[in-house]
Structure formats: structure tokens, C-alpha cells
């Protein structure tokens, strides 16, 4: 056990990155994640790092592409509308096979939307953040402590699999203060970056970081190779958490800050004698398909609880092969669901009040 500090989620994102050996941050101000850039603006010069405010989200993600291509740990952060602007760069980063970390502290959308917490970028993060056949790892912390853990893990995963890793948080988690222990991180073996554009020093052939393959056959081969890596990630890097799911009739599936509210509702349901449980995906891609499927025979139904209009529902249906009904309860636009609202839905799914 290390020292416990009381910190805001946004600040923990910055501190955990520094502790993961990341000395480069490129960003652009946007609510509700600005405290992260402000924290790094103060902290980075003191640790020999750099926090540079770019002229746009577009420029920031391309600075990330440059620094990542040069072989350095680097990250950027934004909130929903800003992440949309980064999507071009993210696709190039995937296509160029370079590692980096991208933080999305989500707010309500579409468009300029609002500035209150939301989870309405689930589709964008897990399905279509950028053009092309692609995936990248998406991790959704639910606690400030978990931000610290996952941020360190994100940099390792990015380096190991040579791809972006997104931390998908939300405005509530970013703004929330909780105790955090940065502690010791599990050590992973990080491959040497022999592909980096850092000057060949007349010691090797020139390196090229590129996403262009003009021959269809070659591009196909490159994409297929990348999908082999994706298959390995789906096998090895799934993260999830469970609470009272062993005997659950109603399995609530929820991630991020919403999972904490859902947990309160599950506890209240148990007090009423309803066999409810909580399944919390931590890695949204790779989605914990097998683990969820293993609950499908026993459970009567599944309930997706999110701060959006039901973006995870299809993933649950696919995971359980539509064996049981999947419902959704959510609030959107920046409205946070209450435990009572979720409890009422659990009760309804269980056949009403006894």
C-alpha cells in the first residue's frame, strides 16, 4: 500500500500518465476535462516533460501521431465534440500501427450537446472512431482509483499491441474527488520500438511510419495481420467486474460511473429479495463476450444501464446470442439516472412488486 491522496479524476488521469513514464501531452481546452490539461501544464515542466496546447483537436492528435512515431509515450485528452475532431488522426494512428493513449471525458451530444456527464460516445469509441477496418482498446474506469490503474495499463497495452488505447470516462468521474493510491503497477514486458522514426544514426535502414498501401492485396494483408492482433487482444485482455451475478435472475450490465449507481440499485433489489446482479465491462473493446455468455443460461433477463439511449444493448445481445431478453434503462443529454429509477426497472423486469 502506498500513500493515499485525495484527487479529482481529471488530475489523476494526468498524474497516472506521468507515473507511466509519459512526458508528452498535446491537447486543446474543452469542458469537462480541462483540469487535466491545467494539471499537466503545471506538472510536466517540473518532471522534464511537455504539455503543449495545440491550435485545435486536429493538430493535437497529429502532434500525438508525430511523437508516437518518434517512439515516445504520448497522450491527448478531450471531450466528445473534440474527440470527433480527432477521429481522422486516430484512424491514421491505427493505420500506422503506432501506440498512444487518448482520453475521452464524455459529455452529452450530438453536436455541441451539453457539458454534463454522458456515455453517448459508446458507439463512437467501440465501433466507428475513424474510417476503415479497425479497432482499438477502450477501457472504462468507474472509480478514481481505477483511473490510476487503467491509465498505467493503457500505456503498456498501447506499446505491446502498437495501437491507440482509449480511456472512456465521463464528466462525473472527471470532476469527482476520491482517494487514490498510485501504488505499484504490475510489470509488463514492453517490446523495443525498432520501428520508430528517431533517426537511423547510420546504423539501420530508414524507418517509415505510414498508413498508405496503394496495392489492394498488400493493404488487405496488412489489415488481416492487424485483425490477428485484435483476436489475440480479445483472447487475453478482456477486463470486467461482477457483483452477485452467480445466482442472478436479472443481470444488470453497466460500465463507468453508471455502474456504481446500478450497484446501489442491485443491492436495494437484493434487500427486496430480488436476485439481481451487476456485470461491469471494464474493457468495452474487447467486450467481455464469453464472460457475459456464461451468465445467459441461468439469468432470466439482462438490463443494460447507460447514460445514453441504449448503445450497449446490441453488444449484449450478440454476446449472449439473444438467448434471453435484453432491456435498456438510461438517461441521456447529461442527466444521471438515480438508483430508484434503476431499481424500479429491475423490479418491473422481475415481474413487479411481490
Amino acid at each position, binding site marked *: 500500500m502506498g500513500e493515499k491522496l485525495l484527487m479529482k479524476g481529471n488530475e489523476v488521469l494526468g498524474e497516472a500518465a506521468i507515473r507511466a513514464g509519459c512526458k508528452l501531452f498535446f491537447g486543446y481546452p474543452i469542458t469537462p476535462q480541462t483540469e487535466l490539461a491545467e494539471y499537466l501544464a503545471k506538472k510536466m515542466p517540473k518532471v522534464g516533460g511537455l504539455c503543449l496546447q495545440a491550435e485545435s483537436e486536429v493538430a493535437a492528435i497529429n502532434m500525438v501521431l508525430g511523437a508516437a512515431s518518434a517512439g515516445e509515450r504520448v497522450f491527448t485528452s478531450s471531450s466528445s465534440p473534440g474527440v470527433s475532431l480527432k477521429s481522422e488522426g486516430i484512424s491514421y494512428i491505427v493505420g500506422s500501427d503506432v501506440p498512444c493513449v487518448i482520453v475521452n471525458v464524455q459529455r452529452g451530444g450530438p453536436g455541441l450537446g451539453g457539458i454534463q456527464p454522458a456515455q453517448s460516445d459508446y458507439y463512437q469509441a467501440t465501433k466507428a472512431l475513424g474510417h476503415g477496418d479497425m479497432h482499438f482498446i477502450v477501457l472504462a474506469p468507474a472509480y478514481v482509483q481505477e483511473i490510476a490503474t487503467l491509465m498505467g495499463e493503457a500505456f503498456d497495452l498501447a506499446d505491446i499491441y502498437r495501437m491507440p488505447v482509449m480511456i472512456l470516462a465521463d464528466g462525473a468521474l472527471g470532476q469527482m474527488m476520491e482517494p487514490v493510491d498510485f501504488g505499484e503497477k504490475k510489470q509488463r514486458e514492453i517490446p523495443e520500438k525498432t520501428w520508430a522514426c528517431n533517426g537511423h544514426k547510420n546504423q539501420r535502414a530508414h524507418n*517509415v511510419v505510414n498508413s498508405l498501401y496503394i496495392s489492394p492485396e498488400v493493404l488487405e494483408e496488412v489489415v488481416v495481420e492487424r485483425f490477428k492482433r485484435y483476436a489475440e487482444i480479445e483472447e487475453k485482455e478482456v477486463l470486467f467486474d461482477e457483483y452477485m451475478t452467480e445466482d442472478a435472475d436479472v443481470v444488470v450490465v453497466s460500465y463507468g460511473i453508471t455502474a456504481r449507481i446500478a450497484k446501489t440499485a442491485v443491492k436495494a433489489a437484493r434487500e427486496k429479495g430480488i436476485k439481481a446482479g451487476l456485470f461491469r465491462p471494464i474493457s468495452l473493446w474487447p467486450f467481455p463476450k464469453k464472460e457475459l455468455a456464461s451468465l445467459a443460461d441461468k439469468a432470466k433477463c439482462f438490463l443494460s444501464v447507460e447514460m445514453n439511449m441504449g448503445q450497449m444493448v446490441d453488444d449484449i445481445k450478440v454476446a449472449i446470442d439473444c438467448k434471453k431478453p435484453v432491456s435498456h434503462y438510461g438517461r441521456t443529454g447529461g442527466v444521471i439516472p438515480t438508483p430508484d429509477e434503476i431499481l424500479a426497472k429491475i423490479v418491473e423486469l422481475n415481474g413487479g412488486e411481490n
Partner: protein
Amino acid sequence: MIVFDKPKALTDTPFHYCPGCTHGIVHRLVAEVIDEMGIEGNTVGVAPVGCSVFAYNYFNCDVIQAPHGRAPAVATGVKRAHPDDFVFTYQGDGDLAAIGTAETVHSAARGENITIIFINNAIYGMTGGQMAPTTLPGQVTTTSPYGRKPEIQGNPVRICEMLSTLEGTAFAQRVAVDSVKNVKAAKAAIRKAFEVQKNKQGFSIVEVLSTCPTNWGLSPLKAIEWLRENMIPYYPLGVYKDKTEEAKVNE
């Protein structure tokens, strides 16, 4: 005795450029400067989207291929990660002066210690001859088939003039590669830009007026004549900013 040889900083890959295109000359000049300064081993190039997208196949230094217009931001990331490496971008007019205007202007404003080689041929080459931000008034392109009308399609952008107003720009020169004399001047300007970077004096840009015989619909020789008669009067050659000279005057 060898009196003429291929620069070491160029690979053996044959250029894909059209006959008469001046990209080949400019590639060679950049490579000669890299050779003469002995910096190939610690240089990182950034290729654009456009005709010179394959620059990564031609230069022997490490090269990153950037999204359209974002080369100065990518170069910024590389330079901030490794300040002692030489970093240059090689960009055309659509890449630098249209879709990448913000990245260009702000990397100059920040005084990023990078060098930009800017190819201005007043047209989009790779996509087949569309109007560029630098297309001249009256110039016919596939998207200005009746000639560029400033009242409809706006006016061209003079990049060196614009960037020279920024404090962070240390060196800005416009050159052409239409004659032996001008090719020599172009090489001297590229060398100077890399020296400015070596001395960590800030942002440097060399704008090269170039020909596109294929999309201009002219023979290589006619294209050079067209450049002299039309482009040079609109885009005058010369040094627009030189902080190294200013510093000498102030000594």
C-alpha cells in the same frame, strides 16, 4: 573522378513523377543538403498527402506519412519529442495552404524549429488538376473551368508574405526551379533553412514555384515559360523573412 552522382539521402526507388514535373529537382536539392550537412542519420522527414505522398519511398532518412495538411503538426510532435533531430516537411499547395492552413500558421507562430519545403504549382496534381488555394486569377482548372473568378472562387494565398508577419518565422524565402541559376538559389535557400533549424532559430520555410505540365496541359518547356510569365509576377521570388540577417544588422 565522379563529378555527378545521386545523393546518398535518396533511395534507389525510381520517382513516379510525371515527365517535366519539378518534384524530382526539389527532392534532389533536399537530399544534397542533407548529404552536405551530414545529417541523414538524425533527420526525420514528414510526407504529405498529394503527389509527393510517396516521398517516404525516396528519402533515405526516417519518414512519417502524415494526414492531409497535418504535416506541420506531426513534425511538431517529432521535434518536441526529439529536439536534436532535424525535422522537415515536404508539402504541396493544397496540403499546406488549404486543408492544412491552421497547422502551417500555428507551427510558424509557435516558432517550431522545423523546416517546411513548400511546393507551389498552383494546382492539385494527384487528384487530377483541380483548383488550388494558389491557383491564379483566370487560371483554368477542372474545378474552375471558366478560369478562377476571384468574386466567386476567392483570391490566391501568398504564403511566404503571410508567414513573414509572424514572430516565430525565422526564415521564409520563395524560389523557383525554372533555370540553372534559380535551381542553385533554391538549393542555397534550402541549406539556409536547415542551418536555421540547426541553430535552433525557429520556423523556416522555402516556397518553391514548380511546374505541373500534366495538369496544366503544357509541355515541360511551355510549362516553365508559363511559370515565368504568370506565377513569378504574382508570387515574387525573394527572401521575405531572415532573422539571421536581422541579427547581423543589429550587431
